[in-house]
């Protein structure tokens, strides 16, 4: 007997979570696609963005200002990180970047723990109120999250397609050497991309913040899921990672009908393993290369 009302609620949950995950994962996939850097610290940028958001929110009392402040701060931090820690590693084997970003992740996590303490912080949601969805009072805010994430991703897509920097970024992805020969400042493009990735992670952190408490460990879960998404969706494939985010989140949410949330996460892992075995280039990639 399939409980239809539970299924529908979980589908809505899955879509909302999927959009947040898509926002985080698209930053990660962008960074990987351009620079071949697996950013272990991405979830921690998400977490730090959420924390910066809480501070900004406490001082200004306005959610949207907090969002803007967090995004700009984290973009600058991301750029700084890339210039200091990752630029020296260009050309070295990928293992080194994984290790370097892992080290950065440790520092960020513990820094957040140090500065903000272990007690979760709260941001108030800008849109309160619920609507009735079957047996549950579903908060409007969650729908707002999904729409905003979609808007940001849409903005990114348009930027990549039509913006000058966007075209530079796409050119660098396709052929770094040729792009450099054409006069595109490749190191600057790398820094910008990392900054954009960090900014998107921060935005998702602030958006996600009101739904759960902001605490220093929330990043790792997202890093892990973002990795799964990036692999399942195809490394460097923006559209694929969005579809994969929604897919994975739907699977997880539906799984929570039968198992506890802690165990539901295994579902995404199984999806990852199956993808790697059957279609390693990604489930949503049109033809395997």
């Amino acid at each position, binding site marked *: 007997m399939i409980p239809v009302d539970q299924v529908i609620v979980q589908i809505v949950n899955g879509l909302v979570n999927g959009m947040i995950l898509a926002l985080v994962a698209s930053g990660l996939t962008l960074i990987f696609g351009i620079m071949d850097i697996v950013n272990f610290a991405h979830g921690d940028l998400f977490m730090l963005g959420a924390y910066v958001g809480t501070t900004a929110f406490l001082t200004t009392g306005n959610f949207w200002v907090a969002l803007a402040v967090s995004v700009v701060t984290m973009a600058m931090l991301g750029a700084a990180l890339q210039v200091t*820690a990752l630029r020296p590693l260009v050309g070295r084997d990928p293992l080194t970047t*994984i*290790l370097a970003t892992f*080290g*950065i992740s440790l*520092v960020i996590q513990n*820094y957040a723990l*140090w500065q903000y303490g272990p007690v979760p912080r709260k941001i108030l949601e800008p849109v309160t109120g619920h609507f009735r969805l079957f047996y549950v009072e579903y908060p409007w805010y969650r729908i707002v999250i999904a729409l905003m994430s979609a808007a940001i991703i849409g903005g990114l897509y348009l930027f990549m397609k039509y913006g000058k920097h966007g075209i530079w970024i796409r050119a660098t992805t396709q052929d770094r050497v040729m792009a450099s020969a054409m006069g595109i400042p490749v190191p600057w493009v790398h820094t910008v991309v990392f900054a954009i990735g960090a900014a998107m992670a921060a935005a998702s952190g602030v958006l996600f913040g009101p739904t759960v408490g902001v605490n220093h460990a929330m990043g790792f879960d997202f890093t892990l899921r973002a990795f799964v998404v990036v692999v399942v969706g195809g490394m460097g494939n923006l559209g694929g990672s969005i579809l994969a985010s929604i897919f994975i989140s739907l699977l997880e949410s539906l799984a929570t009908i039968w198992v506890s949330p802690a165990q539901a996460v295994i579902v995404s892992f199984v999806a990852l393993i199956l993808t*790697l075995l059957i279609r390693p280039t990604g489930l949503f990639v049109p033809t395997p290369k």
Partner: protein
Amino acid sequence: MSTLTPPASTAAERELDTRARGDGPSAAYWTGFVIVVGALALSPFVLPDFWQRFTTEILIWGLLAMSSDILIGYTGMVSFGHSAFFGLGMYGAAAALLAVRPPNLWLALAAGLVAAAVVAVFVAYFSTRLRDIYFSITTLVFSQIFYVIIFTWTEVTGGENGLTFRQPPFGVPGVFSVPFTRNGLHWFVLAVVTVSYLLLRRITQSPFGMVLQSIRENEPRTRAIGYNVERYKIVAVMLSGTFAGLAGALYAVQNKFAAPDFVLFLISGETVIFNVMGGMGTLVGPVAGAAFFLLMKEAFSRIFYEYYLIPVGIIFTLMVIFLPQGLLGFLRRRLNQ
């Protein structure tokens, strides 16, 4: 071959010839080895209580780091899943110590080894088909899967609280049995770790080990020469996992408990840190890396309390950028003769 190559005439050629043949470790190596092991054996008489236990723990983590070096340093596959092997070695030993009365040391070690080996086969089968970053992510994912299983399967694993048990005595069943003293346990651990080191060294210097190193250097070429790379990788993962399980079993015996915290990704991460800091591909390096990391952790904990990972993380990142060969990396050639 000796009939085809002309006899080496100059001193340089002779030196090159010796190096190529790999005459085995030099006298300097063995002297260093004896000194280090001797110092560790004598430490119970010199060090105060806390540092003594600390040294024993360093040895155990060093064993874990050594096991991971087989994969990271010799085969070139970065595994972020060693916490699974370590944890299962721990829980395997715990199971043996709880199930069998009176608790038997050798059974515990064997159970830990077997548990870790079984998991290693499982993980190896799935992850060795993948290269580089996909391998790392898969091992990471597996360690998380095992963490979730151990954490939620409360009836068998004690869930969040883990398992506690009594320390088994040292002895041969039926012949003699003497309970472990703190020093006795240290010597036992030292003996196990030293034997493991010698074993692993033997393996890495063998033709099998040479193939692993060849896979690290240039996998497509190794495949082109005709070696079945997947099979070698699977054996490498199993070997690595088994020794990691041994470390886990030793940890369980030393500390008398098993907890899911040890299956967390952080343990895998620390293992990789030990390897990088100490020098990959040297076997001894990771042990030094473990010592270095744990000492730093102790030192920084006094100043920064539980935020010691901030300076340690910064040091680690700087080492990755500026000193990628690690502390003992410069000795890599010498240690691998």
